[in-house]
């Protein structure tokens, strides 16, 4: 029997996937990584992209994540996925927005916010497209 590694994909709003795998691929901060069973302990941020989980029967499952953290221990891979689109500018914008709402609500759009939002959405859309393309290749081949 092939060696396997346990994979958990969780996000703040619930668990997405849990199971065993022979190989896990993810888009880490500095490039794509492949995690085999008994991989050394490893931790990285994830870029928007897809996480592929290959099980014992050679089937691949794809999960799209918009960012998050990847934690690897010899027998467990944990993907802490972000549900939201995250970018520094966008977080700033969200904070700004929350402040503005408070001020407005207690008393009574900036271009920058729109731009940051559009940029992050574009990055996510591109990553999503890439994930879909890969899926197609797998299905076709």
């Amino acid at each position, binding site marked *: 029997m092939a060696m396997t590694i346990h994979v958990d994909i969780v996000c*703040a*709003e*619930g668990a997405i996937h849990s199971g065993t795998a022979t190989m896990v691929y993810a888009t880490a901060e500095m490039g794509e990584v492949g995690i085999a069973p008994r991989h050394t302990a490893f*931790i*990285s941020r994830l870029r928007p992209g897809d996480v592929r989980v290959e099980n014992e029967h050679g089937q691949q499952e794809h999960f799209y994540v918009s960012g998050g953290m990847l*934690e690897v221990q010899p027998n467990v891979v944990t993907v802490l996925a972000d549900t*939201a689109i995250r970018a520094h500018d966008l977080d700033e*914008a969200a904070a700004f927005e*929350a402040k503005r709402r408070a001020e407005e609500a207690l008393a009574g759009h900036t271009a920058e916010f729109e731009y940051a939002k559009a940029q992050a959405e574009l990055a996510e859309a591109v990553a999503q497209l890439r994930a879909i393309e890969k899926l197609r290749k797998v299905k076709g081949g």
Partner: protein
Amino acid sequence: MAGAKEIRTKIASIKSTQKITKAMQMVAASKMRKAQDRMSASRPYAEKMLQVISHLANATPEYRHSYMAVERERKRVGYIVVSSDRGLCGGLNSNLFRRLLGEVKEQRAAGVEPVFCTIGSKALGFFKRFGGDVKAQATQLGDKPHIEDLIGTVKVMLDAFESGEIDAIYVVSNEFVNTMTQRPVIRQLVPIVGDEPDNMPYHWDYIYEPDARTVLDALLTRYIESLVYQSVVENGACEQAARMVAMKAASDNAGNLIGELQLVYNKARQAAITQEISEIVSGAAAV
């Protein structure tokens, strides 16, 4: 028969109110179940994160993030107040605000100024009346709150903490004990209250990409956000439970009222009939 007619319309109106409260009770019951599911679904994420964070904190003792640093002297503290968006849920929100007011009074006596962030429109309304330094707010989260709706509000507080404007952050929300009981609690968020660094049985460490600090920073922000998210979800479950109980009480009260009014109505009707008969009899006797 004027009295009887009035009573009849009154009974009809109470009956329709009862129908509404009954419907609300049932809706709240089903929503509560879903909210409880969400509550348990969000737990693994935060637990896993705490594990990694405590490991990182142990593995890199030379780097202490400001969220994990030792207590600073407190001059101003921030409260993230989690409330419901809608009313008709018994004393849920007012109990929470009363608890908060008591806390604020204590802090003021100790010379600590509070600032607030509100989640949910009831809290916002409360601070409009009560007055208070509200830094940020998020409302209309709906039944399924999403973490992206909270990022901004949490960031305002974390930024204020990092710039030294405030020296601690608390979350004020309701704790779901069971369907009948919800308890207002105030939990400290930052500085993170965690276990003391425990001695690892043997030393091992991660390979970091790009480096430990970046990873730890990213993790901590997400961890705090997930804690706030959990409070919001838990408060949502409390809201539905409280509403269910309140609406059940309202339906029962309406039932009692209808019963009493029905008795009064029957008596009035009977009196009218008796009077009519005696009028007819006395009329016949006079002839």
